[in-house]
């Protein structure tokens, strides 16, 4: 897998997006599918940037590739911050009215809904989050 090591801050979002979608033009990924993957990368990376190190700087490693049959995009996010499993976060209630709905809390839910898989593990002091999407 290709690997990018960067600082977990939202200013680096564009770099991370370019890295994780590099080559999509060559493969011919549709704009609709591409947006799903970009949203997933943005939500996860911004989450790490905002919370993993309690607002302080810290490293994040991102690994990505496209492989297999059917062709599958896989991206892994590794940080050494506070242990946090986003899969345990309860889903927002999307049936609530405008007044009742909280502003926020949708990001991880969007990732869960749009990816084919999302797995979390905490090993050796590292949060490891892996997402995949079949490129059909």
């Amino acid at each position, binding site marked *: 897998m290709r690997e990018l090591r960067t600082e977990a801050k939202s200013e680096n979002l564009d770099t991370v997006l370019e890295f994780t979608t590099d080559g999509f033009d060559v493969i011919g990924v549709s704009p609709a599918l591409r947006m799903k993957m970009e949203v997933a990368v943005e*939500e996860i990376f911004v989450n790490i940037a905002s919370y993993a190190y309690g607002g302080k700087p810290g490293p994040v490693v991102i690994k990505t590739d496209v492989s297999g049959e059917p062709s599958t995009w896989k991206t892994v996010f590794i940080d050494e911050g506070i242990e946090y499993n986003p899969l345990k976060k309860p889903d927002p209630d999307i049936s609530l009215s*405008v007044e009742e709905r909280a502003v926020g809390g949708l*990001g991880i839910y*969007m990732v869960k809904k749009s990816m084919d898989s999302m797995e979390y593990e905490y090993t050796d002091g590292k949060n490891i989050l892996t997402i995949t999407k079949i490129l059909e």
Partner: protein
Amino acid sequence: MTIEMNKNGGELKLSIEGRLDTTTSPELEGKLKGELDGVTALEFDIKDLEYISSAGLRVLLQAQKTMNKQGKMVIHNASEDIMEIFDVTGFSDILTIE
């Protein structure tokens, strides 16, 4: 992202082009904060909006909350891709999309 804004009395129209994400959403949020006073009809034209993440949805929800108290808000020309995001997040039920 480019925001084009037209205000006519209590009517405010915004056309948003490009990406509404973590980096650009604060700009839209700031524009709305400064302009919503006295607005009774807020319209968004998102024909050229290519991308929206939760940061952008958050700003739209906040605008809808404000407009529910003082008037109405309508969203025009959502593309199929953006509409899918509105559907997944339940926003198609709480926003007025025409």
